[in-house]
């Protein structure tokens, strides 16, 4: 299968901004049109969205909070897609990560804080890595499409989480299907209360350049990108295709799993059904807008975090459902894909041939 719309190019980030921002503008234009048709006021809706996302200090910091899981899952998707490994399962990997983190975290009340946090985040990372690597291995060993296997694991993760909060991890009074709160020792450091800024964001910010360096300045990253550009050529030149797939899917899952653990440890402290509003799926839009460049994932995640945060406000202000943002995500991906269509190049080529024919240089 060919590479994604825009497989990771190192290029100049600023120069690369045009297309994603243009796509976003077009998608938002379509949304505005739809809003008008539905009878809502587009300008007021967007104003409410903006003020919900950045209107005051708390709203702005909450945009950062909402963007954090998207950085992790966005990096996960970027890494996998760079190798044409279609990991649609960041959602499940994130949930498995949160589940493992919760299962370990509740037992760490007596631990000192740094090692407790390390164990919680480590458990989440490991769980996500196993879920991802499993799909990579199924692909390498049994030729099971990672598209299907990762999607199936998403659904399995939802059920596993539901079982956990109704069963072994249920809070002691057993009244609600939520897990016991993590002990303070297992909770990530927070800054500047009442905002929810936390150490997880720093981890997310550090992970992006690390992922970038791995993808563009290491052998393993090179092999993965080679696999993404042309799997047959990569195999011919000695890239261990199976091993790269397992490792990259594991790495991708690890980042998503870490995202789940960070969310649990820093923000929610408890596990519950619908723990994720779809961060793993939204990650695909985040990664594509970032054109699979790990560094660009951070601003891209911020953008979608702002949309998510603002979406809650438009419900209150304009009675427009926040699921609108999901429709917008789909549109953004469509418009971006359309921008990168190979058909345009083909038209241009044909046009050039026609000109050549007209000027009698057909044989040249």
């Amino acid at each position, binding site marked *: *299968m*060919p*590479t*994604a*719309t825009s497989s990771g190019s190192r290029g100049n980030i600023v120069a690369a901004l045009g297309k994603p921002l243009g796509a976003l503008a077009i998608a938002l234009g379509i949304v505005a049109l739809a809003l008008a048709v*539905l009878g809502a006021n587009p300008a007021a809706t967007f104003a409410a969205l903006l003020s919900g996302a950045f209107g005051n200090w708390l709203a702005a910091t909450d945009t950062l909070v909402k963007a954090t899981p998207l950085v992790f899952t966005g990096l996960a998707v970027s890494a996998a897609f760079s190798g044409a490994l*279609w990991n*649609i399962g960041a959602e499940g990997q994130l949930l498995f990560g949160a589940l493992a983190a919760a299962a370990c975290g509740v037992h760490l009340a007596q631990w000192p804080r740094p090692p407790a946090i390390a164990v919680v985040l480590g458990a989440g990372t490991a769980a996500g890595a196993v879920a991802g690597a499993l799909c990579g291995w*199924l692909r390498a060993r*049994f*030729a*099971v*499409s990672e*598209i*299907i*296997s990762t*999607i*199936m*694991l998403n*659904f*399995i993760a939802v*059920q*596993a989480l*539901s*079982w956990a909060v*109704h*069963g072994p991890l249920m809070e002691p009074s057993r009244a609600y299907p939520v897990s016991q709160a993590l002990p303070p020792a297992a909770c990530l450091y927070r800054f500047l209360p009442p905002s929810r800024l936390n150490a997880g964001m720093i981890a997310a910010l550090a992970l992006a350049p690390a992922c970038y360096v791995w993808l563009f300045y290491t052998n393993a990253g090179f092999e993965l990108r080679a696999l993404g550009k042309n799997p047959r050529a990569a195999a011919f030149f000695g890239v261990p295709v199976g091993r790269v797939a397992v490792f990259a899917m594991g790495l991708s899952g690890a980042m998503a799993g870490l995202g789940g653990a960070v969310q649990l440890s820093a923000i929610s402290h408890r596990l519950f059904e619908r723990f994720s509003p779809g961060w793993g*799926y*939204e990650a*695909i*839009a985040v990664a*594509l807008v970032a054109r699979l460049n790990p560094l660009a994932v951070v601003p891209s995640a911020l953008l979608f975090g702002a949309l998510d945060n603002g979406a809650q406000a438009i419900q209150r202000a304009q009675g*427009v*459902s926040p*699921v*609108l*943002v*999901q*429709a*917008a*995500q*789909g*549109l953004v*991906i*469509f418009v971006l*894909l*359309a921008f*990168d*269509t*190979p*058909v345009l190049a*083909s038209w241009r080529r044909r046009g050039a041939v026609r000109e050549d024919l007209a000027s009698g240089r057909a044989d040249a």
Partner: protein
Amino acid sequence: MLEAFLSSTVAMAAPLLLAALGELLVEDSGVINIGIEGVMLTGAFAAMAAAYATGSVAAGLGCAALAALAMSALFGAMAVNLAVNQVVAGTALDIFALGVTGVFYRRMFGVTGQALTVRTLRQVRLGPLSHLPLIGPALFHQNLLVYFSFLIVPAVWLALYRTRWGLNLRAAGERPEAADALGLGVYGLRWQALMISGVLTGLSGAYLTLGYANTFVEGMSAGRGFIALAIVILGEWRPGRIAIASVLFGAALALQFVLQAVNTGIPYQLFLALPYVLTLVVLTALGGQSHAPSALGEPYVRP
């Protein structure tokens, strides 16, 4: 008990079969449509909305097919004409459909989601056959869509393997360049497959609301479209085997109800996860997709 299980198995298999047959046609033409999940969800919503507004089940079915056609056309424009990455476009369609149906649902019926119910497809009893022990209700006392979904299996087989059109379609999926050179019109064939699939998947979505749930819930397709994708692989791209695979997954879905009723003490989430686990296990056991059309998932740009 067993009778109810068998009956439920067939009823659960029908929407999977409809969607899988549609996907089979699309994949045979060389396109993989992951967006089938979103198309199904759109069909489910449109069926409910139309049936609720008009009180007519037929209107529900018609609107489901139309809405699903529109979604498939969106995918076709991207995947066929613009030749973009099909997996990414399909995923975008799923996300888009989830958002759009959610917006419309809340707009029309409120956030509270009052227990809306609509008229459902009538169960049709096929004479005395339906009184056969054990298999009677399963095979001869179902709604019309169930009969339809199983009756089109031979029709799809005939169309694919005994008509010129089917040969052309498969040529577009195996060697699009060659098909194009022969003047078969690869884009046209892929669009035809997508449109037929749109109708079938839309009906399969309508089945979810009008056939058994009686109402609409956001995201109610719950992975059935994805399971249909797995069914096509498991059925090795052959209509008959796809029907058998659909029944297998129908049984996995039906097992939930039976086992929940019995109260085995096993957590119910295990049963809910069963179809997805089964998909993984079966695909692993099958090991490989050697039966897939050669050009599956590769965008074709006319040179």
